[in-house]
């Protein structure tokens, strides 16, 4: 349908046609995308090859790959990466074990199952900053309930360089295990009950049934949960930042923040961000490849 120059009143009376809907919705979206996503992405790519500092008025000088080579050879940066890798491993493993375990427990008949499931999901709905603040209190060596209930006396969690990362990871596990639980629960309840009956008839034991039937059938959806949690854990900032200021908990996101906004090394931190981006994409691709393999089975 084509209108020859519809007047304002006329078009309002007839409602919007396809073309004006397109103009109204698509173009602003594209404009926003360009202004807030695409331009910063490209601009930061450019600045990553310069010595640009956002805090000064000095013009940016092209330095080529210098930022990248500096970052990739700097042992302090590598320490940040190692810490992050360790954190991701502890945190995601913990979430999968706890989350999947809870899902297994919930995936059977029990009274108040819906209520229990909802309550278990609560940590996930809280703000990271709030969680960080009250876990700081829970970990407190003098009056924290964790030491009190575990009988650990005045055990230092957050001030202890060896324990601080674990403390942050434990908090993350507490907060995000419900997410893994939720997806696992969906996966578990999708396994047909008659397969378990068949396995029972085939005289398969509990462990054999779990590893040969349950796990392979839940694997694809569990994989998705792991992908999400790995990406999130990789870029964790707020929880670690609020809980601890130990050098042993300086994750790459924190280092990046300091580099960009405390030290104002804008060019260098852009390069750093790109390295992190490539790593996250790389890890995700490995997972996705594995996910497709699992799905094929």
């Amino acid at each position, binding site marked *: 349908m084509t209108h020859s120059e519809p007047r304002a009143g006329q078009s309002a009376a007839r409602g919007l046609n396809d073309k004006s809907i397109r103009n109204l919705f698509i173009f602003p979206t594209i404009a926003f995308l360009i202004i807030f996503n695409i331009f910063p992405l490209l601009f930061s790519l450019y600045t990553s090859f310069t010595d640009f500092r956002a805090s000064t008025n000095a013009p940016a000088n092209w330095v080529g790959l210098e930022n990248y080579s500096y970052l990739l050879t700097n042992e302090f940066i590598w320490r940040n990466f190692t810490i992050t890798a360790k954190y991701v491993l502890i945190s995601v493993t913990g979430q999968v074990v706890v989350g999947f375990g809870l899902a297994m427990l919930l995936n059977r008949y029990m009274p108040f199952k819906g209520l229990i499931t909802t309550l278990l999901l609560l940590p996930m709905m809280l703000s990271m900053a709030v969680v960080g603040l009250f876990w700081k209190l829970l970990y407190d060596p003098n009056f924290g309930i964790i030491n009190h209930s575990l009988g650990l006396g005045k055990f230092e969690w957050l001030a202890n360089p060896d324990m601080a990362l674990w403390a942050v990871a434990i908090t993350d596990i507490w907060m995000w295990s419900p997410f893994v639980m939720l997806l696992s629960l969906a996966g578990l309840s999708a396994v047909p009950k008659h*397969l378990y009956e*068949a*396995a029972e*008839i*085939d*005289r398969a034991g509990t462990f054999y049934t779990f590893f040969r039937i349950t796990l392979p*059938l839940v694997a694809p959806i569990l994989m998705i949960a792991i992908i999400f949690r790995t990406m999130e854990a990789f870029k964790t900032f707020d929880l670690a930042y609020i809980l601890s200021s130990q050098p042993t908990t300086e994750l790459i996101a924190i280092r990046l923040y300091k580099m960009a906004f405390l030290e104002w090394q804008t060019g260098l931190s852009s390069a750093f961000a790109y390295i992190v981006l490539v790593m996250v994409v790389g890890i995700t691709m490995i997972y996705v490849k594995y996910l497709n393999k699992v799905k094929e089975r």
Partner: protein
Amino acid sequence: MAEIEIRNIGKFFGPVEVLKDVSMTIADGEFVVMLGESGCGKTTTLRAIAGLESVTSGKILIDGEEVQDKKASERDIAFVFQSFSLYPHMTVYENIAFPLRAVRMNASDRQAAVKEVAEILRIEPLLNRKPSALSGGDMQRVAIGRALVRRPKALLMDEPIGALDATLREQMRAEIKRLHISRGSTSVYVTHDQIEAMSLADRIVIMNDGILQQIGAPEEVYLRPANLFVAQFVGSPVMNVTDVALEGGDGGASVMIGGDKQGFHFPGQVVGHLNGAPLSLGIRPEAVLLSHDAAHGAIEVETTNVEPLGSHDIVDVRVGETVLRSRTEAGFVSGEGQKVWVGLDPLQAHFFDRDSGQALRGAN
């Protein structure tokens, strides 16, 4: 192989009583088919034997050993599900080998056993495929293969071919029979299809409303149904059942149908044992004999409907207020509204107590 005995089992699902005092003995090597409408308790009985369902009361014995409190895995029984229940993430080979791996049989024995079963079921070319790449018939072959591979004490099948189309069903029926004859395994088979039941069974168990109605060889349940339910459930087209009145004595009696004044004469040895209680007469369509000429003892009636079925016709005739269905040769009458003579074969007549539905039979 084993003998299975069920003693007075009962089962409640919540407040609903689904099995009421069911007892039967299945002999070693016997093929028993449980027949009934959906919800009659046949599948529950089968699942109770397998251990997939607990019983509320009663005992289940396999080879004389009480198993009602044992888990399914401890009963050494195989089960073929209606939904096949193949493991979707495993190949056909892995599916069949699963019960052997589960009990840690060594690899070479396992391979030999799977190969043997695959040969019997003619599924060797499919061993590397996933279940999703199989046709319905092949899926069921694999499911049966998985059940047979470990030589269980008994093979239980829950409507195993119910999900297949008609041609395939016929073919699989023959295959299951062949398999049973070659293996001689004690088999219990659940179906709602009476043709399957008649063609496969050594004995048929007919159930209704959680109550066992009759156990017997296929010809026995067909020729001597124990009650009205069995009489009307077995046989196609359905047996004619109508209320009748009897007039006469030991020398024979006149059987009046549908208020018709002229009765059919039944000899004394057929009706002599009837004691005057209200009666229902059951007579199969093949025992309702039509003729174009006035035969002795026949009544002149009019046809009301004709169903041509190719090999034979089903003709409805009106006797008094009642419609009787008769099986005739194809093209015996050309349509409704024709005059024919109808007679009944007294030797194929069944009398039932109208109130209890129980068959009333003489000494013979």
